């Protein structure tokens, strides 16, 4: 269980985090969404015991990040957004060094390292120098490194940044596997569709403030309240327009004559939407398709942060 209470971080007059409150359950994969400078990395740095908050506190499994940082380090695996590797060190030596840094006995490390390399598909790179690996491989190796002490909580700051599509897919598959292992994962990313696919919960941050937190579906549904519907007709575009204008739940009608398409904002329920379609067909409006515009996490993010910017 991760509890964040009144977390505030100020750099002079700049407020990076403003009384941030959050609670994340065990085994949950929680995606952090926010623009650059929104405060995601600041939260992650505080949770990773790299930064002290100006006010407030956070606890991971009951231990405070400010009072018991040494205990926190035992239960978290941290992957920063930017990281370097040591020259002249091979992949297995890299993991061995961090394993030793977590106090894992040498005998256990010998067993763990091949397993971790296999998990991140780097078995064949075991004896390669780390600085010669590709970016995607380094990212995966860093992920393996963050897992070496079998942490309960993973804090991954932009783990897929700068990766090509193939490397992103590979990273996503590994994270899905970790999710199935029951790890609590905190992950930030700019690639929102990926987050919505693998996260149980989403946290939207803007300017250091919590804008929204909840299940991916509930946040999306929150936004779907005013859904946008596109109706395509074979002909009789004007008649169709006249028909839809009469509906009390419809507003913001737009016509695209070349596409024979009408789009509008609909405030009715799903049942009322069925009724609308039935009435249109009974009124001989030649509707051949009706689509509700799906709003993905990107739309959610844009819509939610819009208010904050204004």
């Amino acid at each position, binding site marked *: 269980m991760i509890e964040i209470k009144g977390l505030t971080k100020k750099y002079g007059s700049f407020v990076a985090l403003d009384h941030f409150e959050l609670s994340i359950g065990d085994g949950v994969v929680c995606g952090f969404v926010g623009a650059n400078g929104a405060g995601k990395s600041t939260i992650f740095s505080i949770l990773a*015991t790299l930064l002290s908050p100006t006010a407030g506190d956070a606890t991971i499994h009951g231990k405070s990040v400010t009072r018991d940082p*040494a205990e926190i380090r035992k239960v978290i695996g941290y992957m920063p957004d930017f990281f370097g590797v*040591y020259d002249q060190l091979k992949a297995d030596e890299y993991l061995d060094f961090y394993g030793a840094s977590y106090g894992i006995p040498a005998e256990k490390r010998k067993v763990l390292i091949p397993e971790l390399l296999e998990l991140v598909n780097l078995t064949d790179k075991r004896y390669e120098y780390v600085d010669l690996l590709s970016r995607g491989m380094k990212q995966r190796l860093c992920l393996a490194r963050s897992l070496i002490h079998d942490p309960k909580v993973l804090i991954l700051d932009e783990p897929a940044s700068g990766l090509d599509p193939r490397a992103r897919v590979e990273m996503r598959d590994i994270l899905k596997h970790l999710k199935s292992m029951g790890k609590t994962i905190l992950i930030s990313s700019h690639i929102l569709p990926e987050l919505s696919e693998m996260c149980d919960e989403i946290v939207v941050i803007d300017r250091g403030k919590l804008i929204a937190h909840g299940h991916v579906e509930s946040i999306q549904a929150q936004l779907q309240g005013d859904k946008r519907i596109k109706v395509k007709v074979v002909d009789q575009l004007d008649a169709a327009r006249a028909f839809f204008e009469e509906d009390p739940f419809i507003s913001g009608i737009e016509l695209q004559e070349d596409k024979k398409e009408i789009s509008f904002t609909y405030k009715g329920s799903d049942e009322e939407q069925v009724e609308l379609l039935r009435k249109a067909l009974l009124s001989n409006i030649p509707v051949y398709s009706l689509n509700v515009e799906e709003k993905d996490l990107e739309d959610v993010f844009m819509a939610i942060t819009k208010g904050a910017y204004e």
Partner: protein
Amino acid sequence: MHQRFSNPVLMKELKLRFRAFKSFSGLMFYLILLFIFVGGFLSVYTQFTGTGFFRPSESFIMFSVISVLQMALVMFITPGLTAGAISSEREKQTLNILLTTTQSSTQIIIGKLLSSIAFLILLLIAGLPLYSIVFLFGGVSPTQLITIFLFYLLTVIAIGSIGIMFSTITKKTIVSMIATYGAMIFLGAVTAFFFFVGFSLDRIPGGMPTTPIGGPTPSSPITFFWAAINPGALMLTILFPEMGNELANLTNISFPNWIVYLIFYSLITVICLFIAIRKLRANMRHNR
């Protein structure tokens, strides 16, 4: 037990240092420099004939000069090895990851210091065969050699600690390097300058208290202090004990200057390491 005393940073640093080509090239140039000097010295004293005599007293001069040269080389190399210990990790973006491991700040700092010192000890040991040439001709006691090496060790640890401290409190390696070389110049040259200035000022009539008529004018304790903490001065008093007596006469302080040196450099080491350990996790209140 082994687990408790193992230091992963030390082991990793040793591995990386001894894998790097620059370590071996550095060692090679260091030995070449010493060899050129010893060879040149022998050639000059035997008048380039190879059949000339080399007296024990000359052997002692060679020992003295090699010791001073080695001291200068070690003092010059130490900041280069330690001043980037932490700042280079910061620049390479590996420090944050290291700080999230369960290693304590003390373990990390001590590991960094010991790995640098280990390399410097290797340099000193690698230079021993050249020292053995001195023993070939006699004139130097093993005690003197051991004393000199212990003195090197103390100086290296102290300057290394200064380097580690600057490396921890500054963000850039170049700044840390300049600050460490500055501190080294202060200890090696500025203290000598202060000693001579103090010594001269003390000789100005009416400037300082005087002894009864006929005796030498004693210098102030501060002047003695500048001489006592100067590595060159200590080296000379180890090699030529009569110079130590001369310093005692000049300053009227018969306290052995090596004790002052030992206390001062031990204090520097402890203070610098303490600051480095406290500042390593500067962004955390509980910086352990």
